[in-house]
């Protein structure tokens, strides 16, 4: 097997606060091959965005990477200096942040922002950059791009701005796309256009994608593999179909169960009881045990590592016991 485009190994991120350190990411490992889409899911606050932020070197003090490594196409990129990292970010890694507005300058026309990125990273002429910008806007479904390219961000709708940010992230032909909730503001049809575009770039150019989203429908139709995060850790990782339909970790099973159905209206949506622990109060043992319907005594003090057959692993003592049993 060829080496992955992105390899994150044992990554830990801590925020130093007055009340002591907050361990926001602990021992996170992921890898994404060329042409592959890894979906990252998990409850609000689980550490999905932070994982992306750490990969692109944008963790800000008081936060810092306290362990692990990030490797892009065989080259360590954690610890690069600011300038080198900015180069990597524009050219090799395209980023769609969760707050699309933070990537757009409200004072610049949409077209100028795209052309600027294209010219800096691809070295195209002014005219060629404008053509590429127009093409990108059309690909993300902006109506009448020639007419809209010289508008300002505030003249676009929320979903149109989100699409401009996607166009910006793809502008320099990155090898890795980190897309944090890229389709939240989009209707299903335009969503299909965007995910179709991303899939095509994976297939044709071998782009690797880290797709963060809480929309399981998008995951089911787009991702190849899925990583489920909980309280700063990856608790399950496997092929998309297996994770959705045969989730091993009790948290993942609860997550799949609380998806509202389109088929009928429910009186109350099902929710996993309780809340994810706060970073300053992560329990001993398995972080999920206080909410877990199948916990056993050992879960209170023993922290499970990812276990199970390679390819579909879960961090749960029961899964580990099962795997050991099957192996014995």
């Amino acid at each position, binding site marked *: 097997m060829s080496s992955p485009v992105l390899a994150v190994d044992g990554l830990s991120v801590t925020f130093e606060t007055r009340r002591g350190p907050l361990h926001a990411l602990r021992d996170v490992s992921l890898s994404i091959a060329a042409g592959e889409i890894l979906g990252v899911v998990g409850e609000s606050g689980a550490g999905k965005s932070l994982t992306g932020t750490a990969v692109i070197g944008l963790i800000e003090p008081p936060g810092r990477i306290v362990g692990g490594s990030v490797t892009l196409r065989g080259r360590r990129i954690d610890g690069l200096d600011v300038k080198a990292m900015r180069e990597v970010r524009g050219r090799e890694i395209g980023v769609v942040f969760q*707050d699309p507005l933070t990537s757009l300058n409200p004072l610049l026309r949409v077209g100028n922002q795209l052309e600027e990125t294209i010219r800096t990273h691809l070295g195209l002429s002014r005219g060629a950059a404008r053509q590429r910008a127009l093409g990108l806007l059309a690909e993300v479904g902006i109506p009448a791009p020639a007419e809209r390219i010289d508008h300002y961000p505030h003249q676009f709708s929320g979903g149109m701005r989100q699409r401009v940010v996607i166009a910006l992230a793809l502008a320099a032909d990155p090898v890795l796309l980190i897309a944090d909730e890229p389709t939240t503001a989009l209707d299903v049809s335009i969503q299909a256009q965007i995910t179709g575009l991303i899939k095509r770039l994976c297939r044709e150019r071998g782009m690797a994608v880290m797709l963060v989203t*809480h929309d399981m429908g998008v995951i089911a139709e787009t991702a190849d593999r899925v990583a489920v995060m909980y309280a700063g850790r990856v608790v399950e990782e496997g092929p998309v179909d297996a994770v959705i339909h045969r989730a091993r970790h009790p948290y993942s099973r609860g997550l799949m169960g609380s998806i509202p159905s389109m088929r009928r209206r429910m009186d109350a949506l099902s929710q996993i009881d309780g809340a994810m622990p706060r970073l300053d109060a992560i329990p001993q043992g398995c972080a999920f045990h206080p909410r877990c319907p199948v916990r056993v005594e050992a879960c209170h003090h023993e922290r499970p590592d990812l276990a199970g057959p390679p390819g579909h692993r879960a961090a749960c003592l029961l899964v580990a016991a099962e795997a050991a049993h099957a192996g014995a």
Partner: protein
Amino acid sequence: MPAPDTILEARDVSCHFDVSPPWLTRVVERRGRRILKAVDGVSFRVRRGTTFSIVGESGCGKSTLARLVVGLVQPTAGTIAFGTAPDAQGKPRTPRLQMIFQDPYASLNPRWTVEDIVAEPLHELKLRQGAAISARVGELLSLVGLARTDASRYPHEFSGGQRQRISIARALATEADLLVCDEPTSALDVSVQAQVLNLMRGLQAELALTYVFISHNLAVVRHMSDDLAVMYLGRFVETGPAEGVFEGARHPYSRLLLDTIPDIESPNRERAPLTGEVPNPINRPRGCAFAPRCSLATDLCRSERPELGGRGDVAVACHHAA
């Protein structure tokens, strides 16, 4: 004066933006003024204590309509009128409006702590005094699944979904009678989303709150709505009781919209987006705006704009709606 249980009534409301290039460019390139019709002749009525939802393609004018309702933009034509809502003593007064914005981060002041943000409407509207303010802030935070101790932190210290919940807590603090929610739960995972939506429904039942609700998540819309409007390029193409529209959508666009929902039970990995030309609000087609993408379109559709009308509760704007 709107009917007694009506809290909001919009009549033939339009909102047009002038997006013309600068004068000199227009002269040099011999181009006229360009008018973008974000909302174009929309009428609807919202009953107190109910949820009126608006769905439709990105860019079709939903947020603009929301901004018209709360008065952030003025209609180019048409009127928006409000009924009344009872105050604490049960006396009728003009309803209090509040909006939850589509961009949660942009609507939170980064220099304020969460406490400042959520407490502001309490001070501003004199809803609580003294120590009761902090207590209320703590209460609201736990209602949306945050911790009381989060009150002393700043917005940037939170995840996207946590920030969205801060703006929901703030909106709930206003005790507004009419809450305009623009994608209020788009950044929330299913579990937290369920918690917030259940909370909103609970408050609605208890306090007779009215919601104008915008979301791309049709499962959520179905869960929340009493009435529903499907919008296409600045106009309503189908409107009526939500269950009626969900069960028997008649406009070809509504049908398409309801058919294309991704479903984890039967994922369609080769999903195709809508084909045909993406509609342009600056240069609307003459007849039905959906005609260029509609498989049923005839010459009539391309020349004459269908008006909303129909059988029973559901009104449809289509020449061929069965």
